């Protein structure tokens, strides 16, 4: 039933959980900050450097990354009619990686003036966005010719292999320093953003979210398949383009600012469908937003290894959580909701 009231309780629970995880995330870390001083620095009665310039932007980044990747995964899974689709599988992250590799590693090869000009934060962001957009466009062109969705997935994986190959060729010619920089980018990181960068991130992210919201009706129609969608008056080409641009804006900027974060895009939509037991995107989209943000905050809190001085790469944690989820989904495939 399209009755959205039935979902009020789970939404409320998720919202409370999100707020809880948000504060827990800010509170936990190498230095534990009590909730009281978080409140004080949030309302401005006390200054806390760690919270205002490190923990708070990191928590917001986690929310944007988790929700954005989850939503782009949802869009891809519906568009490609494939439960295994996601930004990572379809090579969008690979495209972003290639863009970044060309900038960081390629700079050494082109040398001189380029290297100082190229390796700014912004050039990395632009290269990652451009790379992911190009790969997604290539996947789209291929998908309009190949009707078999499995073929599209394999083509996405092939793009991943090509990327890996180019990156290893580039790294062969790069200095150890550049290589390290690239590898650190590949670990993923939520904590490197200043408030200014977070602002730009949020603006592009918002465009992606707005385009996803516009696509809700089209996504629901696509649940019947493209021919039925067309017979219901949906302009397939236009909807497809909007969905793809939304995905590349979301996945592209997230990868650009936070590195290639694995598995979130694939796993979150599945977890959400299991929890809400629906395919209606009017419910799924906000639910994926909440669950994605929560999972990312939790992953980040774990990665901080509370009370220790170490920080694990965020990518390792998301994979540690994401991979078992994917395995679990495949094992109980018979009841998989899609």
């Amino acid at each position: 039933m399209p009755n959205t009231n039935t979902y009020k309780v789970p939404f409320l629970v998720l919202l409370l959980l999100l707020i809880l995880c948000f504060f827990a995330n800010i509170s936990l870390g190498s230095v534990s900050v009590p909730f009281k001083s978080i409140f004080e620095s949030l309302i401005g009665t006390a200054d806390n450097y760690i919270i205002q310039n490190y923990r708070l932007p990191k928590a917001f980044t986690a929310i944007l990354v988790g929700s954005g990747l989850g939503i782009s995964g949802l869009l891809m899974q519906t568009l490609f009619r494939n439960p295994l689709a996601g930004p990572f599988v379809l090579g969008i992250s690979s495209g972003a990686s290639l863009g970044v590799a060309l900038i960081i590693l390629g700079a050494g090869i082109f040398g001189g003036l380029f290297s100082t000009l190229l390796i700014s934060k912004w050039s990395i962001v632009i290269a990652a966005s451009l790379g992911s957009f190009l790969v997604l466009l290539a996947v789209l062109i291929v998908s309009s010719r190949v009707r078999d969705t499995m073929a599209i997935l394999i083509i996405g994986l092939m793009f991943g292999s090509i990327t890996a190959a180019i990156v290893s060729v580039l790294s062969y010619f790069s200095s150890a320093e550049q290589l390290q920089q690239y590898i650190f980018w590949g670990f993923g990181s939520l904590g490197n953003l200043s408030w200014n960068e977070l602002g730009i991130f949020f603006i592009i992210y918002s465009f992606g979210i707005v385009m996803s919201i516009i696509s809700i009706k089209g996504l629901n129609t696509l649940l019947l398949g493209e021919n039925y969608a067309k017979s219901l008056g949906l302009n397939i080409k236009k909807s497809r383009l909007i969905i793809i641009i939304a995905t590349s804006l979301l996945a592209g900027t997230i990868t650009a600012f936070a590195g290639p974060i694995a598995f979130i895009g694939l796993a979150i939509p599945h977890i959400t469908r299991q929890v809400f037991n629906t395919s209606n995107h009017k419910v799924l989209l906000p639910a994926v937003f909440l669950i994605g943000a929560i999972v990312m905050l939790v992953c980040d809190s774990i990665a901080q290894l509370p009370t220790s001085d170490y920080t694990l790469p965020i990518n390792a944690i998301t994979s540690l959580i994401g991979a078992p989820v994917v395995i679990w989904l495949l094992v109980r495939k018979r009841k998989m909701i899609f």
Partner: protein
Amino acid sequence: MKEKNQHIILQTKNLSIGYQSNKAETIVASNINLELKEGQLIGLVGANGIGKSTLLRTLTQVQPKLSGAIYLNNKPLKTYSNIELAQTMSLVLTEQIVSKNLSVFELIALGRQPYTNWVGNLSENDISTVNKAISQTNIESLKNKKCFELSDGQLQKVMITRALAQDTDLIVLDEPTTHLDMYHKVYILKLLQKLAKETGKTILFSSHEIDLAIQLCDSMIVMSKDNIVSDSPCHLIEKGAFSNLFPKDMIVFDEKIGSFRVKK
């Protein structure tokens, strides 16, 4: 037979159908002149590979025509916008729907998409149209089930209900009786007959159930290698339109009982 001046929903003039590639034109059938009238149940029959699907795909604008003209409600088909077409013609296809996790009500409600706002919210009018369609096809008991829980016959009824909820003058069904047992074949076709009569909609379907179509249709389109004829079943039998459908050394049409027999 009362043959009053009924409104013509769909009309073709010298229509040629087939496939256009870069170099060559493959004509599947040509010189097709059809008139589908309001409130009629029309069966499209012919042997495998004769071009039934191509004809349906051309009439529903899934693929372009080669030449000739198609008029929907006296207006050229190609001048229809996506939404206008969706409000005039609905389809029931042979392909499976992608997500079977939709509930039956949700699936049928998707038929209201050409009328809903940008986010697809159902108005009271939409909900009452959906409920009316559900009662017209007698599937109230399935309303809250998920599509993966349904049998083939039930799912076909649901897909017909969805087309009905789309509230169009013309409903086109591509082989709605495949994969169904004898009882459900008859049930579905009788349902279509009832719906055409009660709702005044024109229903066009392709089928291999020629015997059943002869008994239930107001009009039939018979496709054979040489020509395409369209008339009421009685007239078609008189004209001997069915006897050329299949190779005569295998199957013969018995005009007395209006049915096919295997030649011994």
